[in-house]
């Protein structure tokens, strides 16, 4: 119990004094996760929408695979990305291992299936509703996908926030490909793992509370957006 109080005090102290190290780690966490989110959304939103609209031979298999990939073990993703980016790997020449870019790549691989799968579910329902109208209006496939993404944007924002939540709380993959290097690749989750291994539970908890606060902010944003949709404001 003492550790928790100490952790709370440490968190309060770190935030109140805007501890430079904390700010740096927090900003890096946000940078890595937001970049990964932006890239994942650019891939997953059109992919999820296309899977809802387009009919092709192995569509069901692709959807099933996508759903299965939602549960990809981050450590395995980290290991594969590590092998691809290591000096002896096919992309070793790029020198990306132990950089924030490597962490972003790992997070993109982890969160893209999650966002694409939620997008597919949301767009599928909207497509069932809009199908006859959009066919009647002679829309192209691109116009249909754009219309569905725009009109389903509230649900898709929730999908994106779910992806962000998974990304920012992830530790297994980014500790492997990032290396948890101070001032280079250290983020909130890897810093917590490090402080815990050092036995500095107060600081680890302090960082943990900051991470929880970020996650809560994400959830509040999701809630606010859902309420907006329920009240019918566009």
């Amino acid at each position: 119990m003492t550790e928790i109080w100490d952790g709370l005090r440490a968190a309060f102290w770190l935030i109140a004094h805007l501890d430079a190290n904390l700010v740096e780690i927090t900003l890096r966490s946000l940078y890595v996760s937001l970049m990964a989110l932006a890239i994942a959304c650019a891939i997953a939103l059109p992919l999820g929408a296309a899977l809802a609209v387009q009919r092709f031979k192995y569509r069901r298999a692709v959807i099933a695979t996508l759903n299965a990939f939602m549960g990809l073990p981050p450590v395995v993703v980290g290991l594969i990305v590590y092998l691809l980016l290591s000096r002896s790997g096919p992309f070793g020449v790029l020198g990306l291992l132990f950089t924030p870019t490597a962490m972003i790549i790992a997070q993109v691989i982890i969160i893209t299936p999650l966002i694409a799968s939620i997008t597919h579910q949301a767009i599928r329902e909207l497509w069932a509703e809009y199908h006859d109208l959009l066919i009647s209006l002679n829309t192209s496939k691109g116009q249909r996908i754009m219309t569905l993404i725009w009109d389903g944007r509230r649900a898709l924002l929730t999908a994106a926030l779910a992806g962000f939540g998974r990304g920012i709380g992830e530790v297994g993959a980014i500790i492997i490909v990032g290396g948890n290097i101070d001032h280079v690749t250290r983020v909130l989750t890897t810093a917590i793992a490090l402080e815990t291994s050092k036995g500095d539970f107060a600081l680890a908890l302090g960082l943990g509370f900051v991470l929880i606060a970020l996650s809560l902010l994400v959830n509040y944003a999701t809630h606010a957006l859902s309420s907006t949709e329920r009240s019918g404001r566009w």
Partner: protein
Amino acid sequence: MVSPLFPLSVENASVTRRGKRLLGPVNLTLPADGFTVVIGPNGAGKTTLLKVLHGIERLSEGSVSWSIATKEARNKQAYVFQRPIMLRRSVQDNLIYPLTLAGLSRRAALIQADDWAHRIGLGDAMDRPAPQLSGGEQQKLALARALIQSPDVLFLDEPCANLDGPATRDIETLLRNAHAAGTRIIMTTHSIGQVRRLASDVIFLHQGQVHEHGLRAAVLDTPQTSELAAFLIGDII
């Protein structure tokens, strides 16, 4: 104004789904002028026929031929569904949607949208979410969204089903005006009163086949088949 799309020829058109014949074989020729109303009991194939003519239902056999290329013909048509499909957008954005799809600038589309919103009595509701409108308002909006495209042909699938008297009157007024402005209208209905008020010619469908097609007076006053005679007096056929 005579539409270049007509005459419309339907030859041996049939639709079969999962071994069940929903329509056909149907043979029809529709001229450029007129207000065609399709009647018949539930399950007669009215909606399927309309969708086949519009090209959103695939034919199993036969053909539907317009006087111009099918793709070009599709761009000159609009369709109003029995249950209005509202985009999850404002009234204004629902109205401008087909215009912006066609490449019109948003500014030009908004001018037309404003005009149509006032014509259908939704001028003060431009920013309201369309799905929150009443059934009658949604159907008027769906009709305006179809007419704003200035279609040569307008298909309507029971546009006044479940609407009360005043809402039905508003829809019928819009349809008369559209027809007077040169839009060829082909619609389905269950209301014989509506047939008398609007139709120039009537198609009677039963069990997926055209039993009668002719001018309104001839079809309603001197039915040639026992099925139509029974249908007109309200018998269950």
